[in-house]
């Protein structure tokens, strides 16, 4: 593979992972199809690329069990897997196995993107208060896209050009240390932040009991192995809000 080919594939993957192509990137990111198509186009072997991509799609849909870990970030993993399968003449299952560490790296890069975007959020706040619409557009739409390209283009190019094993070595070196564990903990914990902010915005300490009610209901039912959907909980939420409204307005009258 030439460096130009590697770069072109990396640019496509970065465009998907930056989500700068809109909600259309949903199928592009979570299915190997479009990444496989692009690799076929760049490497000039569409037929083989499609055959391999179809098998990878079946693996992802659970039709074909690969027997190992499923690579996260299907778009990233399949860009690597399809290339490896075409150039190295590997069968798709083996190619997917090679792509696992690169997919894992992709999912960590995707989270890293969230942190970089926080820089942009600060700037957005500064623009918002001044009603600076131009600045707002720049920090909401342009900068996060640039961040994503800066993260994904070099790494995917390296993975393709020097070979996926290079990434695999790096990931192995890191995963034995505390770095990936710390990243997992941080991403598991940071969800608390947005929730706490929303609670603060709603702002009523008096109503906090309803937060606790829902929290323990969901924790307990989940532990009991019941899978109750968000919609069901929302119906309960609406009923409780209704009751609250009914009782309080009556008391006032």
């Amino acid at each position, binding site marked *: 593979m030439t460096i130009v080919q590697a770069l072109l594939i990396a640019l496509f993957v970065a465009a998907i992972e930056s989500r700068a192509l*809109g*909600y259309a*990137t*949903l*199928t*592009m990111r*979570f*299915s190997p*199809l479009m990444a496989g198509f692009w690799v076929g186009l760049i490497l000039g072997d*569409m037929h083989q690329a*499609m*055959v391999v991509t*179809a098998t990878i799609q079946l693996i992802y849909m659970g039709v074909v069990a690969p027997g190992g870990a499923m690579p996260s970030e299907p778009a990233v993993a399949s860009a690597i897997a399809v290339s490896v399968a075409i150039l190295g003449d590997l069968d798709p299952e083996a190619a997917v196995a090679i792509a696992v560490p690169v997919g894992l790296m992709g999912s960590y890069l995707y989270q890293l993107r969230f*942190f970089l*975007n*926080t820089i942009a*959020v600060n700037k*957005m706040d500064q623009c918002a*208060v*001044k009603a600076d619409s131009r600045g*707002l*557009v720049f*920090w909401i*739409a342009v900068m*996060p*896209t640039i961040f994503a390209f800066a993260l994904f283009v070099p790494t995917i190019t390296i993975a393709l050009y020097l070979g996926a094993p290079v990434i695999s070595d790096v990931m192995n070196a890191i995963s034995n240390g*505390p770095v990936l*564990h*710390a990243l997992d*903990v*941080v991403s*598991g*914990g*940071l*969800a*608390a*932040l*947005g*929730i706490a902010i929303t*609670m*603060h915005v*709603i702002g*009523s300490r008096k*109503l906090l009991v*309803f937060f*606790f*009610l*829902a*929290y*323990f209901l*969901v924790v*307990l039912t*989940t*532990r009991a192995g019941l899978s109750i959907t*968000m919609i069901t*909980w929302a119906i309960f*939420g609406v009923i409780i*809000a209704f009751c609250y*409204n009914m009782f*309080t307005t009556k008391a006032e009258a």
Partner: protein
Amino acid sequence: MSEVEKLSQDYHDYLDEDGMIHADPRLMLGEANKPDEITKGDIMKVWFRWWWCNEVPHTFDRMIAPSLCFGLMPVLKKLYKNPVFLGEAYQRHLQFFNTQAVWGGGIISGITVSLEEERAKALNAGEPALDASMIQNTKIGLMGPLAGVGDSIDSGTVQYICISLFLGLCQEGNPLGAVMPFVCFATATFIYGYLFTRMGYTMGRRAALEVMKGGRIKSIIDALGVLGLFMMGCMAASYVKLSTPIEADLSGRPFVLQETLDGILPGLLPLIAVMALFFFFQKKGMKVTQAMLGFTVILIVLAVVGIL
């Protein structure tokens, strides 16, 4: 000089301790501030901008709020000609927001447009207007449930129908097998998402009029707050993932701290995290960056020393 003309046009004079604008409603009076009519084209613009920017500025602390703000921008500019009010509206829609793009995003952005329109018109006419917190609480109450619906239908079903239809072509080596699922899914979701946005707009207008007529705004804000906090409880329980790996061997008997904690009160650690942050914001005001940096450092330290 009338009293209204003496009002400050500088946003600095309306900031609270959280740095949020609370503009004087009288700033919206007058012919110059008259909101423009919202057209079908505006609704399309809102939907398209939200759809396009959906997960671009994703972060942990705001999730995809900036995308919604980006979507609403053209409408907000038409409704709030006064820069202090425009700034206030921008700030409002940069607050934490997370939902699914088509079902949640479509319906909620439509409703939000209609609520903002009612608010701006009433302010301009000097009538009692929809409270800003009501717009916030509506978004917060709806975002969770609609995300649930949308994820299971779009990502779970529609996507796989599109893929299955053309997988045969793909297996034969035909590139259409890869391109068609993408085209079909993107087109279908774009179209029904737009219809949802339109629907949300019509529904929101009707609901807003109903609410204003009844004059029961305070109790409705409270009820929406109840729903919002209830949904936050559900989200905290589902999305915040913290547990401790601490284990010890007490004279042959294995001791797993997480099991002991679960025995006392299940879900204790995530709850501590949320409540600690909540009280931080209540005490110190909305210092989001400070909270995020501090919290991240604490998590990293606890993870490295092996407590989390």
